[in-house]
């Protein structure tokens, strides 16, 4: 069972119990003893996922904008780290992982969708509390890093024109109203919506990438195109920064995927291996397409391909085998390439850094193919009893649609509200001058 069920799911309930009565006699005693190896790994995995956002993602993104906006991007990511951390302990953790009494296997009700406020301000958290085989504090931290990186991903869509204040307000509301419920549906264990449907999302294909991707698409449509886009070219100002950030994302992602096993074991090892293979395959695929289509493989192509492969393997990293991973990597390379080029051009929106094109589309590719490559016949861990590739893919698609619709609609409302009140966008003059000076009173470089 363990093979196709996120450990996080199994864990959801226990957390609920912890919330209700901290001294409940452990059902599975062996499991409730602290294992220092698992603890060591989860400490590190947490560090790695935070490293993905700062400096990883922030460099990846910042290199892609024009130099007058470089600090605004770094700043949005950095501030989101701080902001999301506080929101998480205030209520995010409890809303995402709190399991209320009525949340029961097989029953779909409000508790399947969202947690509660029982653990607001971490009021039930102690030094000695465990989450399975390691301290609950580390589970809180590990999940916090996911809570952090998701809104940071969205920043890629509205880069170079959104007000800093609007970013912070949107992030706050979105985390509480969108991330927490989607996370609850996926990972709060028995009784949770996606869990009941048997959806596979090992490390956050829906929760993180599709969720952020669709919000990003809504964002860039509502905030509008950058002045001069697409007539005027807006090439990356510092590709060395972007490639550096991509490298950091790659290495940090092992915390994301192998860390999602929540233990230092065979599944963590396999998650690491398949993550590497998908990423490698997607990188080579993207470069191959560029080479054939444009005559030259580019560094930006390599970096983007890698991220596409990382995104797509995320939900599958606990269920796919090595060859499945390569297939997922190739597919994500091809489809995200279209996402960041043709689809974007056709759509006519200005997804500045392809947050939707890579995370949204890559997330969908991954979520669907997770259902395919979990099958034992295709080298995966095997599907749950009674599931076929077909039914599994349908379950996957249901979770994708729920995420697209829920996140899309709520994001739309939030952006509209902010636009009507404080406004989403900086003035044209500020945009010309650059957000670094206009919004932060600083310059990136004085070389």
């Amino acid at each position, binding site marked *: 069972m363990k093979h196709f069920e996120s450990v996080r799911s199994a864990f959801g309930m226990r957390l609920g119990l912890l919330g209700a009565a901290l001294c409940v006699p452990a059902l599975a005693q062996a499991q409730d003893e602290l294992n220092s190896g698992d603890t060591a790994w989860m400490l590190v995995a947490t560090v790695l996922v935070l490293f993905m956002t700062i400096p990883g993602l922030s460099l990846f993104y910042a290199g892609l904008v024009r130099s007058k906006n470089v600090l605004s991007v770094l700043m949005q990511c950095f501030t989101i780290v701080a902001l999301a951390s506080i929101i998480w302990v205030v209520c995010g953790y409890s809303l995402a992982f709190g399991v209320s009494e009525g949340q029961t296997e097989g029953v779909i009700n409000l508790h399947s969708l969202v947690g509660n406020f029982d653990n607001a301000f971490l009021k039930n958290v102690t030094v000695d509390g465990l989450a399975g085989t390691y301290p609950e504090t580390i589970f809180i931290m590990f999940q916090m890093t996911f809570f952090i990186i998701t809104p940071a991903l969205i920043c890629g869509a509205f880069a170079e024109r959104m007000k800093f204040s609007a970013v912070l307000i949107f992030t706050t509301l979105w985390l509480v109203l969108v991330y927490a419920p989607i996370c609850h549906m996926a990972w709060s264990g028995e009784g949770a919506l996606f869990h009941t449907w048997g959806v596979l999302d090992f490390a956050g294909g829906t929760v993180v990438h599709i969720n952020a991707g669709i919000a990003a698409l809504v964002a860039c449509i509502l905030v509008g195109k950058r002045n001069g886009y697409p007539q005027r070219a807006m090439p990356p100002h510092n590709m060395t920064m972007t490639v550096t950030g991509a490298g950091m994302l790659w290495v940090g992602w092992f915390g994301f995927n192998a860390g999602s096993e929540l233990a230092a074991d065979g599944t963590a090892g396999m998650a690491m291996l398949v993550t590497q293979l998908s990423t490698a395959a997607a990188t080579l695929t993207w470069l191959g397409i560029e080479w054939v289509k444009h005559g030259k493989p580019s560094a930006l192509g390599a970096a983007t391909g890698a991220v596409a492969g990382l995104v797509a393997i995320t939900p599958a990293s606990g269920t796919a085998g090595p060859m499945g991973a390569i297939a997922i990597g190739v597919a994500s390379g091809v489809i995200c390439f279209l996402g*960041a080029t*043709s689809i974007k051009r056709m759509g006519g929106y200005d997804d500045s850094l392809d947050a939707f094109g890579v995370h949204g589309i890559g997330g969908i590719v991954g979520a669907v193919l997770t259902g395919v490559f979990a099958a034992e016949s295709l080298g995966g861990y095997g599907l749950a009893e009674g599931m076929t590739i077909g039914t599994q893919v349908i379950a996957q698609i249901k979770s994708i649609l729920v995420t697209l619709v829920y996140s899309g609609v709520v994001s739309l409302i939030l952006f509209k509200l902010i636009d009507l009140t404080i406004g989403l966008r900086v003035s044209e003059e500020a945009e010309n001058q650059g957000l670094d000076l206009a919004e932060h009173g600083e310059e990136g470089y004085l070389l």
Partner: protein
Amino acid sequence: MKKIEAIIKPFKLEEVKDALSAVGIQGLTVSEVKGFGRQKGHKELYRGAEYVVEFLPKVKLEIVVGDDIVEQVVKAILDGASTGRIGDGKVFVLPIEEAVRIRTGETGDAVLG
């Protein structure tokens, strides 16, 4: 006195400098510029978005010289900078009315060495 301004290809700077030294030039000022002309630029592609670079990196030399050696200096630049291919650049000659050495305050041709 004349000021000679030359726009050349960046990788020819060393050669031009040597050619100028050979005709006795001991001072000049150089700056990085971008040139637009007949030489075609190149295309860059970033995630499929084409970015046509029409302004090409060039180096501008400014040399103030006495009237007598203008011709010689122009020739030296041509020798050093020419590759025979489009984009080699231009030399312009401008009048200078006065020159002063900041350190000493002296003026005239003596300043130029």
